[in-house]
């Protein structure tokens, strides 16, 4: 009697676990730490609505690509897009899910947030170590009427491999030939300036810039805002000075016609348009065209569809820019349609 009672209990537990597994799916994803805050917000709302949950590991863009290639996750997320050839070879597709901005931040006595104006050439010469003092004539020329104290410039960069660095160096190689020839772009590069100090993560860069007088670094916009740092204005592709704002990031992405790029593979840095912030980037989501787990892949698409439709406000609250509707329509029509979930 006792034994049969136990058996019934076990059978019941098994039945329960099976039925609950059939009821709710758990998607898995890994990669970019940039997209993590907004993904977790979306996932919370999505779970409340559908009961399906997302397990996302924020391990960095490179790690995300590795995990999706190893098929250990349902989707990977990366700030630097995968090349079209590589996507084709692996039977994958990618689409941008969210947009954000990378901003130069400085620590100069008396310079307030948004006050200092920089051009692409000045910025790349500073990071190349050929422009080494804040009282340089070229900086003064960009900033009439602003008192900039003299001081040797310390360059602060990311020490770890990072999508932020990929976006920043991609911008510099687009606008400056000597940067492109000598340094190039990637998640981690060989920083040429002799005065370079590197920190780990956005936090490390923010901490170093806040501490070291006369330093300049680059962080995601949210970090600059959160830490009250002096971000700079940038001269964009249309030769206009712009402040880093959500509107400027949106303007940069609006000018990008994703449909023109095979596999949507493009950086939206140095985008045209008078209001565009030049160092804007997107986080890309990578999925398989013929996924092993069709139910989960279908759920991933439903999840991002929910994010595009209902997640805009949540994204804006976190200083991200939702994808413009034209782009999300294009993603639905031309990217998701390639994924075999039936």
């Amino acid at each position: 009697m006792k034994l049969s009672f136990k058996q019934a209990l076990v059978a019941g537990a098994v039945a329960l676990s099976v039925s609950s597994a059939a009821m709710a799916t758990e998607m898995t994803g890994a990669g970019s730490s940039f997209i993590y805050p907004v993904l977790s917000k979306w996932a919370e709302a999505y779970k409340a609505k559908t009961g399906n949950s997302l397990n996302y590991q924020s391990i960095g863009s490179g790690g995300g690509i590795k995990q999706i290639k190893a098929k250990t996750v349902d989707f990977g997320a990366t700030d630097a897009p995968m090349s079209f050839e590589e996507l084709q070879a692996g039977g994958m597709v990618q689409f941008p899910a969210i947009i954000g901005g990378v901003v130069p931040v400085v620590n100069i006595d008396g310079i307030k947030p948004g006050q200092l104006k920089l051009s692409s050439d000045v910025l790349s010469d500073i990071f190349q170590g050929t422009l080494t003092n804040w009282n340089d004539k070229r900086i003064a020329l960009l900033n009439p009427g602003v008192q900039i104290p003299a001081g040797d410039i310390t360059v602060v960069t990311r020490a770890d491999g990072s999508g932020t660095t990929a976006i920043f160096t991609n911008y510099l190689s687009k606008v400056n030939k000597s940067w492109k020839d000598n340094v190039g772009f990637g998640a981690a590069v060989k920083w040429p300036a002799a005065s370079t100090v590197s920190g780990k993560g956005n936090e490390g860069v923010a901490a170093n810039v806040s501490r070291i007088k006369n330093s300049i670094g680059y962080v995601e916009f949210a970090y600059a805002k959160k830490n009250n740092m002096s971000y700079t204005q940038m001269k964009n592709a249309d030769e206009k000075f712009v402040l880093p704002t959500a509107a400027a990031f949106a303007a940069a992405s609006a000018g990008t016609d994703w449909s023109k790029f095979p596999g949507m593979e493009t950086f939206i840095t140095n985008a045209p348009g008078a209001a565009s912030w030049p160092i804007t980037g997107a986080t890309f989501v990578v999925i398989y065209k013929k996924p092993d787990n069709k139910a989960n892949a279908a759920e991933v698409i439903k999840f991002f569809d929910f994010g595009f439709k209902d997640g805009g406000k949540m994204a804006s609250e976190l200083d991200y820019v939702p994808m413009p509707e034209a782009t999300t329509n294009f993603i639905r029509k031309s990217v998701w349609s390639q994924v075999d979930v039936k």
Partner: protein
Amino acid sequence: MQSTSSTLGLPSAKAVQIARRQRIQDFLFHAITQFFSMLVLFVLAGIIGSLLINAWPALKTFGPGFFLDDEWDIVNDQFGGLISIYGTLVSSIIALAIAVPLSFGIAVFLTEMCPDFLKRPLGTAVELLAAVPSIIYGMFGLFVFAPIFGDYIEPVLQATLGKIPLLGILFSGPTNGIGMLCAGLILAMMILPFIASVMRDVFEIVPPVLKESAYGIGCTRWEVVTRIVLPYTQAGVVGGVMLGLGRALGETMAVTFVIGNASRISPSLFAPGSSIASTLANQFGEADAGLHFSSLFALGLALFFITFVVLALAKWMLLSMEKAKGVKS
């Protein structure tokens, strides 16, 4: 009569049983302990093997010159380990140069001169320092120590030691606080409790009669420590220093925070650099399979090798010390 027969005659059945049981117990004990110690060897061989296999593409491409090349360019797939190896060695040497004399002072004070009521709290405080996680040292270093160091101490060092010809180059450059010297100081703080507590423990086992007789013939405290205590405990002291050095060589988190992570070698101690451990910590997560990935493994191999050489040197030093003692007496 009975007693002699039991001692001289055949053992009773019970004694045989006990002896057999003991033999089985002994055999089992032997086998188990041997298995555990062999396990360590197997794990070690496994680590070396996996490091070698993963590092092989880099070693094949760059040759042995990998360890002497100061190029670390991820975009162009050019790798050499010299910058990191240099940073590891220099920061560890700085740490030892500071921590060993300090630990020695602490240990001598605690064992020879400390009043009894202070002994316990001071000793516990030193051991507590060892229990602080390295990430805490890193955060303390970056947010508290480095600013003070860069604003007040480095300028003073530059104005004094920096003026000495030749030596001055060690203290040149901007005073950011972050850099090789800062990393060395934080490391010194981290390894100090290890060395100090080992030294204290071995100093305490010196038989009092030895010290008392030395005092009896009129030795000063300094003479007792250097002529009696140190020679008696040299193996333990070297062991403690090596324990500290081992930790300094492999320390990752704290060093990553304060060393500045620059991929270049600078003669100045104020300049940022990077160590093997900090390079691995920074780049491993994002490294794509290929030369970058295997170069990181090659760096790991280098760290393994450095640690091995250090331990071998320590053993060799101890052996030659014992020999010298043998010749003397």
